[in-house]
């Protein structure tokens, strides 16, 4: 007959509470939580300093920006800097152009990457390893080296001056995303494919009905990174676009940097506006993004 020691059977916290009337374990947990919150808040504030400084700068007059001692709150907030920034350049148009590029690239990556990744992760075909290495090899080549040949190619295709050079490559898959997706798909048990195949599913059905729904974290990463990279890309639009009305926000912001000076207050106002979509995206996608990154980190 099993006999349990009553002292051992009593929960530890009850034991402590009974001794001196204070639930020390709970106190310990609260203190720990409070410390974590203080630490996280401090770190968050530190990370927010550049953003807050941007906000402060965007509301200052020019001489105030570099004044000593620095003032976080300007004497008279210059809200007109925001209006001036919008009046100087068509920021709304630039942001709309960026959004077109983001949507085009995101669609391209979501269409191409799972297809290519599935082939590498699941299908068997001759030369698969060599093709996989070849597919990855562009990642080892600095982008600048490809600029001139790509420019020549697009010029001959009569695509320079259009959005095609900026969107078309995404429909052929980004090697980094493909690599990510292949690694992720390899962690999904093959039993699922085989069970589906026994049930009569074909390759397309397995990919779209079985595999892709399990790849949401990886797909989220692709969407978020495509958004960020496309939104911030300066060089490619600069090289391929010529019409002022077609420039994305990354190129548009550069117009605030003049030959002899930078209008920091307007530049910061415009930059703050331009990062709003990224903040909104992160706000809505942070759960999937962090979950996706940690999942990929564990599985990849």
């Amino acid at each position, binding site marked *: 007959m099993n006999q349990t020691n009553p002292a051992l059977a009593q929960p530890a916290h009850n034991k402590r509470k009974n001794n001196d009337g204070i639930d020390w374990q709970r106190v310990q947990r609260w203190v720990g939580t409070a410390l974590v919150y203080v630490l996280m808040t401090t770190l968050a504030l530190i990370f927010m300093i550049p953003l807050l400084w941007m906000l402060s700068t965007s509301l200052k007059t020019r001489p105030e920006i*570099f004044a000593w001692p620095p003032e976080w709150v300007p004497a008279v907030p210059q809200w007109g800097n925001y209006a001036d920034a919008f009046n100087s350049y068509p920021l709304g148009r630039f942001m709309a152009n960026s959004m077109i590029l983001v949507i085009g690239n995101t669609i391209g990556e979501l269409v191409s990457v799972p297809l290519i990744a599935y082939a590498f992760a699941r299908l068997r075909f001759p030369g698969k390893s060599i093709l996989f290495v070849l597919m990855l090899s562009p990642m080892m080549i600095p982008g600048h080296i490809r600029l001139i040949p790509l420019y*020549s190619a697009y010029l001959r295709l009569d695509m320079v001056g259009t959005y095609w050079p900026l969107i078309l490559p995404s429909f052929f898959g980004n090697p980094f995303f493909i690599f990510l997706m292949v690694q992720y798909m390899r962690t999904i048990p093959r039993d699922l494919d085989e069970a589906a195949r026994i049930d009569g599913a074909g390759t397309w059905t397995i990919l779209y009905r079985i595999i892709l729904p399990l790849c949401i974290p990886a797909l989220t990463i692709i969407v978020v990174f495509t958004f960020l990279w496309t939104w911030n890309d300066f060089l490619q639009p600069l090289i391929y676009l010529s019409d002022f009305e077609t420039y994305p926000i990354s190129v548009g912001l550069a117009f605030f940097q003049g030959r002899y000076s930078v209008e920091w207050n307007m530049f910061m106002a415009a930059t703050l506006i331009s990062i709003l979509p990224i903040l909104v995206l992160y706000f809505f996608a942070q759960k999937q993004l962090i979950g996706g990154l940690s999942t990929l980190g564990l599985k990849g």
Partner: protein
Amino acid sequence: MRGKSRFLALTMILLLVMSQLGSALAQDSVTIEWWSVAGNELPQEAQEAIVTAFEAEHPDIQVNLTILPESGYDERMTTTLGAGEGAPDVALFWNANWYAQTLDLTPYLEADPDLSPEDYFENFWINWATWGDKVVGLPLGVGANFVMYNKAVFDEAGVDYPTADWTPEEYIEVAKAVTDTEVRRWGGDRPRGPYRAIWMNYGAFPYSDDSTMVDGYFNSEASIAAYEWLWDLVDSGATPTPADIEILGTEGTGPIDLFLAGRLAMATLNQGHMLIAVDEGVDFGIVPEPGFVDSQRFVNAWSLTASIWSGTENPDEAYEFLSFFAGPEGQRILMEQGTLFPALPAVLDEYENADTDYAQAFFSVLEDTQVAEWTAGHPCWRGAVIRSVQDVWDLINLGEISRDEVTTTINDYIDEAQASLEECTPRLGG
């Protein structure tokens, strides 16, 4: 019914004739691609006004203006020139590495009754429009460095304003006198590279005129004196450190923001900064960079070179536009609607604020000998020797060597600089 058919046939013939005529007319019209940047000097609206004025005068030539951001212009031009195709007919060729791909304008200027090299400031023409025997472009505007001083700061410190005949040593003394560490205010800034105006004013040159000898030049008394002056300036504590300038400066063009904020009592700035200070209502004065009485005075000066790409399919039309853009009509529009100081003295005379002290002070430095006459004289300057002279400059700026070590440090670099020059000169000629 028959009448209807005739009407239809006549209409079709008429349409056919009109379409042929239209297409013939369209073939006669040429479109010129023009790449430029937008900014205070060259506002987009002013450049569009140039296009409108030009097209009104030349109905057979259309101009397609592409405005690029200043900070990405080099990448775009280098890519297209590197590809050897797709470059614009007319553009700002402000990088000397691109000169090889410019159309030689000599025959066009010889045939042009309305424009000649004599119309431009001579020293700007030589330094910014010619490259060897080739005319690589037309100078668009003039720019130069000078020292701007904040009168309010000087008044507060009870220090006399500097005068045009000041020496480098006096610069340090004045900078120390107006420095106030309590309010983080520096007296002056540092030269942003060696062998700029002050080095030349000392009579210092890093190698001989015939580009063959470093020994006796880079380590000459004048050169050592200039480097020791830099050491004294750094040691005075009256200037921002390189890190301060890197963080607080503006795009490497001069610490205008620190000057506007009253944290730099004196700064080596340019005509663009000067106009910004006017707009901001700062009470300032201008003097040339320090030099020595009775010796040649140098100035860091520049112009934008507007050129025709050698691969253009329409060189005649491109020249028509370039000579309009960088000629009196275009530069006048840019002066009136932007802030460009024209490279044509006749147009500059029309500058509406020409009588102001600041404009007069700026005009006076335009006549000085340009550092570019020497530094742009041989490509081995930038290709090879500058590495050695920059190393010494860096060591002093970072406080890595004592004043006594300046001479020995320079001497240590002589062999390296000489070897670089000997390797470079035969390769690049000259």
